[in-house]
């Protein structure tokens, strides 16, 4: 934020920030029990930063909810803990593992942990009585998300109906709910991947180290480079080897691929993102590749 503006113009990044802060404050004012869904990835860290700014010097007036797949990168959990400690917010962890044990979701051995997150998340929202859940979804990520609203209404089953969304006019958000319904809120809807990186660079905030170039033992599967791990047993013909890689997205380590990269600083990452020729999901998210409509289906079920 520059000190003087001779022409009263805000850069686009400042405009995005102002818009997102407005959304955080609006939700805090209108909803009884908001919660911030935190994956530990770069998008949810930007959300944490925006929430910090929206309410400063008061603490963020709602807790943070993380769905733990049991297959999360330890580097990501470490970053999560640092943020939670620094901001003094309450962390709620909803474990997929526990949800399987409790019979809330069914692990049939074929369904990815990422998909089991849906039931786990909806159960946590219901159990805690949250009425608004902030998510880090961006409309540039995928075609089905282009139609998402900032306030995305979910029925009592947590479902999203693309044909039955409330029109969203000006910056006047309608937060009315019925018993059992909740709202997903996407404060960074209008940010692109490049905006996220620009902002992280500008703000100088901590993100998980796996976004930066590092040495890792990886193997090829379905055209992706996956992490060698006990959760990810090698199949016939697969060979793990040491490579210099980084992650463009973080999630369930059994599904999240990395890319070969020597980018070790934010400017180098920005450079790489700016010339990238494949979307972040297309490159590294196994769970979005199953069908052209995969994301649309998961959204309807109540995915982030």
């Amino acid at each position, binding site marked *: 934020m520059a000190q003087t503006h001779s022409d*009263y113009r805000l850069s686009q990044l400042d405009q995005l920030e102002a818009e997102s802060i407005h959304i955080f404050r609006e939700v805090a004012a209108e909803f009884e029990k908001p919660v911030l869904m935190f994956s530990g990835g770069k998008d949810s860290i930007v959300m944490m930063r925006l929430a*910090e700014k929206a309410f400063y010097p*008061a603490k963020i007036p709602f807790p943070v909810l993380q769905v733990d797949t049991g297959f999360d990168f330890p580097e990501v959990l470490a970053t999560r803990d640092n943020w939670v400690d620094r901001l003094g917010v309450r962390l709620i962890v909803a474990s997929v593992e526990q949800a399987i044990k409790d019979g809330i979701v069914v692990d049939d051995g074929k369904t990815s942990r990422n998909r089991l997150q849906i039931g786990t998340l909806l159960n946590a929202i219901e159990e805690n009585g949250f009425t608004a859940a902030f998510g880090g979804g961006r409309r540039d990520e995928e*075609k089905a998300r282009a*139609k998402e609203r900032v306030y995305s209404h979910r029925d009592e089953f947590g479902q999203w109906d*693309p044909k039955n969304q409330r029109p969203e006019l000006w910056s006047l958000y*309608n937060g009315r709910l019925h018993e059992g319904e909740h709202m997903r809120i996407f404060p960074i809807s209008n940010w692109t991947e490049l905006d996220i990186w620009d902002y992280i660079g500008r703000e100088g905030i901590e993100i998980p180290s796996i976004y930066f170039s590092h040495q890792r033992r990886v193997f090829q599967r379905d055209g992706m480079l996956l992490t060698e791990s006990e959760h990810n047993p090698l199949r016939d013909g697969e060979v793990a080897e040491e490579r210099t890689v980084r992650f463009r997205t973080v999630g369930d380590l059994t599904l999240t691929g990395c890319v070969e990269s020597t980018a070790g600083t934010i400017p180098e990452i920005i450079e790489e993102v700016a*010339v990238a020729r494949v979307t972040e999901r297309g490159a590294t998210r196994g769970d979005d590749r199953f069908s052209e409509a995969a994301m649309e289906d998961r959204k309807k079920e109540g995915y982030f």
Partner: protein
Amino acid sequence: MAGTNTGYGMDLLRFATAGSVDDGKSTLIGRLLLDSKSIFEDQLEAVEATSEAKGYDYTDLALLTDGLRSEREQGITIDVAYRYFATPNRKFIIADTPGHVQYTRNMVTGASTADLGLVLVDARQGLTEQSRRHAVILSLLRVPHLVLAVNKMDLVDYDEVVYEKIYAEFTQFATKLNVPDLEVIPISALQGDNVVTRSENMAWYSGPTLMHHLEHVHVASDRDLIDARFPVQYVIRPKSDEFHDYRGYAGQIAGGVLKPGDEVVVLPSGMTSKIAKIDHFDTEIPEAFPPMSVTIHLEDDVDVSRGDMIARVKNAPSPSQDIDAMICWMTTKPLQPRQKLAIKHTTRTGRALVKDIQYRLDVNTLHRDQATNELGVNEIGRVTLRTTVPLLCDPYSKNRTTGSFILIDEATGVTVGAGMING
């Protein structure tokens, strides 16, 4: 993704597109994304594969933007979709709205936040009822810049006469509207003429390409920097030892420039005070202007809460419970006199009673039908409301933030109307 200019010095243009599937709107957007290198290989490959599977002769760029399966199956676009691209100078947010008659509400939605409206016409068809309707809606929503893109020039042999005829007809129609800035550009989205690169087929056209115009249209002056308006959104009281007496009023500046030391009035109470300081996160700033989200501190301990408005002593809106507005009705159950609805204006929420429907506006002819006693879905009309709380409003023509409101059905919770205050 063109260039590596990061967002620090870039500005932002939001534009709404209107046109039907047949006008080639999706193809145009696909072309803008492709030629500004905002399309990734995996997206393009998917589109090429689908085009090939369908037996098309060319890559159908429209497939880049038609997002939902139900739409792909029906070959139409529903609802508003938002798309993003950037050039080295500017970031763009497109509100892509379907053009069909029943989707007026979506166009109003997309236009409500737009700096510029882009109306597409098919050069072979010329102006249609639909193109006129799109222009009317954009002007009602006070979108400051309008572009008419005359598309499919390749199908009329790039004939200047065809373009001139549409140009003349449209500019004549536009005189009846509020269009402060108009550009008419002949293009072929399919071939790429005058979209990003200048057309060699239309040497007779000397104006800007569409992309050049989008990149350079001046939007900074479209805001009201004179009339200070600050709707209070949230009161920050840390209740910690370190910030024991901190009491900040958080919100987004809706108009004007506010500085520490300014004499201000708090509405609706009418109490006056001075601005002690303005915070942006952990920094005190010397001034705040739209659309900054800031926290304002007053010198006196006056009672201020969400829904109040801070303005200047000699330049403040007068609180009013009788509202005269243009309303776009968005639900199948018609709007009728005596109906009660919830209303949200800036950060204020109350209830509203429909006193009178003065007329329905025919958005194709601008005819005012005064015999009507209700507004149906996707209709626009002039309505008088009585509200339970005084609204701190300006005419929409002066300020799109303090001049707009939404109406909510109290039973269903659904947004059923969009209002623009007259004055």
